[in-house]
């Protein structure tokens, strides 16, 4: 109890844990409150943000935790959206279970194919290489979708019907909000478990010094491929949900703009933080909603300026503030020689 009352606890892991729980609880409570108040605009904005939050959490696991600097996370999002859009409009598949499974599978497959190209066959895989290839892919697929008549070309896919869950139609509003909340909680739970696991240690080891990890015996390409494919699957799931929530799919879902946007969420909230990316999404997509409407031209400049300030003064993002102070305040350990009076083994 005494620990809880100290500033160090609140600035450290304890405070961050409480903050994360409060954030999730706040989101869960906000839905019914907005629904009760008839605020359908804000309800939709929050639902969209939660779905983008799923994409941001996946991006953070790939980039923030494993160091795979992907500038094309929207590719998975778009693939998931198009798969769901095509299945729902051409094949009349409306069961959310099937659509979500198809999106997830398509993202996984896409991640495996792109990942195999990225990570195998090269002795060193630099951040710049991965960034440029994924950026080019994102750009190319957006252009391709814009001219490919079979998938709606520039108009995308419209008129996507409402999905059903266990035979019941999911209405826009609070029902879709709950679908988004449950998906986000499951993804957050999985990300939390993986980040705390022994595999999470390997992911960070590859991020921090991939050559050292290889000399220990880790097969870097396999670890990167697993993470890239898994986060691709989750990104595609987010895209599929987004398409169902919005009722349409656009080539921009695959594009560079969304890919960049997701990186901004992660940077703003904090890399290698569980809820950091979610904080970034909520700040920009919900908190900044009114500003975005009032000042549409200035909005990108405002986002850019905020991002610059964060990079300069909080390079680990808003949610890492406590960790930074705690580490700075932590006492350095005594050297072995000091402990033992000369003998590092203390003998």
């Amino acid at each position, binding site marked *: 109890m005494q620990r809880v009352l100290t500033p160090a606890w609140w600035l450290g892991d304890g405070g961050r844990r409480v903050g994360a729980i409060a954030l999730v609880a706040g989101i869960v409570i906000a839905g019914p409150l907005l629904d009760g108040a008839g605020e359908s605009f804000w309800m939709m904005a929050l639902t969209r943000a939660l779905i983008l939050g799923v994409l941001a959490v996946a991006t953070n696991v790939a980039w923030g935790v494993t160091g795979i600097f992907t500038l094309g996370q929207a590719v998975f999002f778009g693939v998931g959206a198009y798969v769901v859009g095509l299945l729902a409009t051409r094949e009349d598949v409306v069961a959310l279970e099937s659509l979500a499974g198809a999106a997830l599978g398509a993202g996984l497959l896409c991640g495996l194919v792109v990942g195999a190209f990225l990570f195998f066959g090269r*002795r060193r895989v630099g951040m710049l290489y991965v960034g440029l290839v994924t950026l080019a892919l994102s750009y190319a697929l957006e252009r391709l979708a814009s001219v490919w008549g079979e998938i709606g070309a520039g108009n995308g896919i419209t008129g996507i019907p409402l999905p059903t869950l266990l035979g019941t139609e999911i209405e826009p509003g609070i029902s879709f909000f709950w679908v988004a909340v449950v998906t986000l909680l499951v993804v957050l739970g999985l990300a939390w*478990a*993986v980040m*705390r*696991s*022994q*595999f999470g*240690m*390997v992911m*960070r*080891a590859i991020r*921090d*010094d991939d*050559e*050292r*990890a*290889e*000399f*220990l*015996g*880790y*097969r*870097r390409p*396999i*670890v990167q491929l*697993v993470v890239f494919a898994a986060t691709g699957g989750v990104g595609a799931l987010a895209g599929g949900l987004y398409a169902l929530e919005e009722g349409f799919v656009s080539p921009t879902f695959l594009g560079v703009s969304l890919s960049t946007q997701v990186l901004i969420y992660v940077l703003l909230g904090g890399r290698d933080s569980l809820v950091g990316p979610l904080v970034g999404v909520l700040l920009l997509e919900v908190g900044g909603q009114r500003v975005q409407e009032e000042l549409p031209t200035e909005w990108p400049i405002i986002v850019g300026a905020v991002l610059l300030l964060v990079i300069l003064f909080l390079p680990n993002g808003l949610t890492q503030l406590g960790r930074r102070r705690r*580490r700075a305040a*932590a006492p*350095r*350990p*005594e*050297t*072995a*020689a000091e*402990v*033992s009076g*000369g*003998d*590092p*083994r*203390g003998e």
Partner: protein
Amino acid sequence: MAILEASEIVKRFGPVTALSGAGLQVEPTTIHGLIGPNGSGKSTLLHVIAGRTLPDGGRVVLDGADITRAKPAQRARAGMSIKFQLARVYHEQTVADNLLLALQVRDGIPSLVLSRTRRRHQERVRRLLDDFGLTHVRDHPAGELAHGEQQWLEIAMAMATEPKLLLLDEPTGGMNRHERERTGELIRAAATTCAVVIVEHDLDFIRDLCDRITVLHQGTLVASGTPVEIERDERVAEVYLTRV
């Protein structure tokens, strides 16, 4: 049978030939020093053996298996371990987790995702911490350790994989006399279970520690033998007296 045989190694960097026919033969559970003046190619030879650099010619055989073109991870899994010149430990992770990282390298991804083997490795982590005098810092981020302790942690990580061959690139760089002595003790202890190859500038350290020494000069083998034989070798004396 030798645990390591590197023979006729050739390595060129553009117009510069760093190694021209150099080689090394290391017997099990011996300590083998690799010395030579600056630019002699000793670090390049170590990197070729480790798989950090691929050779343009020659063969590297570890315990009977040709690993000349093998990737670093394959070499590590075949029983080779390395400590780099500058300690490369994971600064953000704790000392104990650095050791766990090394110990769990052969565990499958599903086991790692489910953290199934963490408990199984704890006893070995505890023993390594004790052997290397790092118990008092087990829960500190490795980046907070003193220079010498980081070097010992990296040697401990290299030993955690129970290698057949341990490669040490200047293990006493930047250490004081006491730390050098302690490092020597740790290397001797390591050599009871595996062969050790050391690249080192400190000739006194090498002479006191090694069973055999190989001397390189301008990418070629000058001499190989016991410390006494090397000390008496005229070609070695000439190399060190006429070095540029």
